[in-house]
């Protein structure tokens, strides 16, 4: 039987590094700051944060050879080499003209370099790899790349963010810009900065991506969620990450 001791090189049990990284003048609040103390403690404790189960799984998958090329991620990317990668996604890959999010990038590597099948959206494998990569940027400030080609996609994201949609005719901005900090059905409306993705959302009792969360929001405002591969999701993420730039990443986050 495999010995399953925590061997992720975690120096301390309570890793609240992200709380220190935001400057005092920054008035923006992350979802972490809007949570109650009990949930913050759950996120901070690496031995109890359910997201860490997925980080551990991702670490195991990182060294597992896959595909016709029989290569593991670790064969090209040394452990620790993913630091601050998650902080600068979405990005436009070399030799491409459309941006991809972290999941898209992982699947690009799967198909192009490992010659393996892409991993299904919200699959345990894809989420675990994403969690493992994002975890290595924990505490790093969000730093969108300065690639000018991202401009039009960022604008598209902003347009989607401000677009009124669905039966309730609400836009993301209606709640997350105009009413952030106020209560909706007893819960504080967050400012919607994607600092903790992929998150262990209690509502899901599972780890999930930003895409899943955005789809939940769309359903929540009684709009039709765009298809899974719609360009809106990556565009929105580019916009949101730019809006959150400088805020520290705290993946894997725990959220209600």
């Amino acid at each position, binding site marked *: 039987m495999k010995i399953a001791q925590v061997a992720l090189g975690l120096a301390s049990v309570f890793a609240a590094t992200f709380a220190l990284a935001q400057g005092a003048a920054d008035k923006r609040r992350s979802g972490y700051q809007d*949570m*109650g103390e*009990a*949930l913050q403690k*759950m996120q901070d404790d690496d031995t109890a944060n359910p997201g860490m189960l997925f980080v551990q799984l991702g670490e195991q998958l990182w060294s597992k050879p896959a595909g016709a090329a029989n290569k593991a991620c670790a064969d090209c990317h040394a452990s620790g080499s993913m630091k601050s990668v998650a902080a600068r996604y979405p990005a436009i890959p070399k030799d491409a003209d459309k941006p991809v999010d972290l999941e898209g990038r992982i699947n690009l590597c799967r198909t192009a370099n490992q010659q393996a099948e892409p991993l299904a959206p*919200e699959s345990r494998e894809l989420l675990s790899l994403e969690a493992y990569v994002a975890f290595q940027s924990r505490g790093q400030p969000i730093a969108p790349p300065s690639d000018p080609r991202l401009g039009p996609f960022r604008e598209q994201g902003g347009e989607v963010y401000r677009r009124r949609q669905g039966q309730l005719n609400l836009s993301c901005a209606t709640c997350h810009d105009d009413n952030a900090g106020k209560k909706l059905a007893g819960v504080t409306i967050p400012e919607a900065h994607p600092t903790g993705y992929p998150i262990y959302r209690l509502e*899901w009792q599972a780890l999930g991506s930003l895409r899943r969360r955005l789809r939940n929001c769309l359903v929540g405002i009684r709009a039709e*969620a765009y298809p899974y591969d719609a360009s809106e999701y990556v565009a929105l993420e580019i916009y949101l990450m730019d809006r959150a730039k400088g805020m520290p990443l705290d993946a894997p986050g725990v959220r*209600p």
Partner: protein
Amino acid sequence: MHSPLDRRAFLAGAALLTVLPLASARATPEAMAAAIKEVVGAATVREGKVKLDLPPLVENGNTVPLTVSVESPMTPADHVKAIHVFNEKNPQPHVFSARLGPQNGKAVITTRIKLADSQKIIALAETSTGQFFSASADVIVTLAACIEDAT
């Protein structure tokens, strides 16, 4: 070694956990009281010695951290031998039953539970001297345990 009598008494408290629940069944304060009586029998339950830590306000009832601690010397002569936790509004009244002994050193257990609604939670400790102590906590749940599927 657990004597057959010991094991039976412990399992009596845990027995209802294995009964297949009806979809329409709902725990009530009466069902919780009945579940507690299954464990306690005719003995009196005293307040004190048990501390139940739960957040007073819970954002989501799906995952609520809970810690039960019982004051006890945890010696072979005087120790906590079981901790049972009950709820009054989930579909069934049990939360968990744990068996302990002097080998634990401290009678402190932490876990995470589901709460279907704002309700009272009761923790019951059984000592090796045959005494029962309990503590209760009232929790307000803003969003009941309910899972949003991947859409």
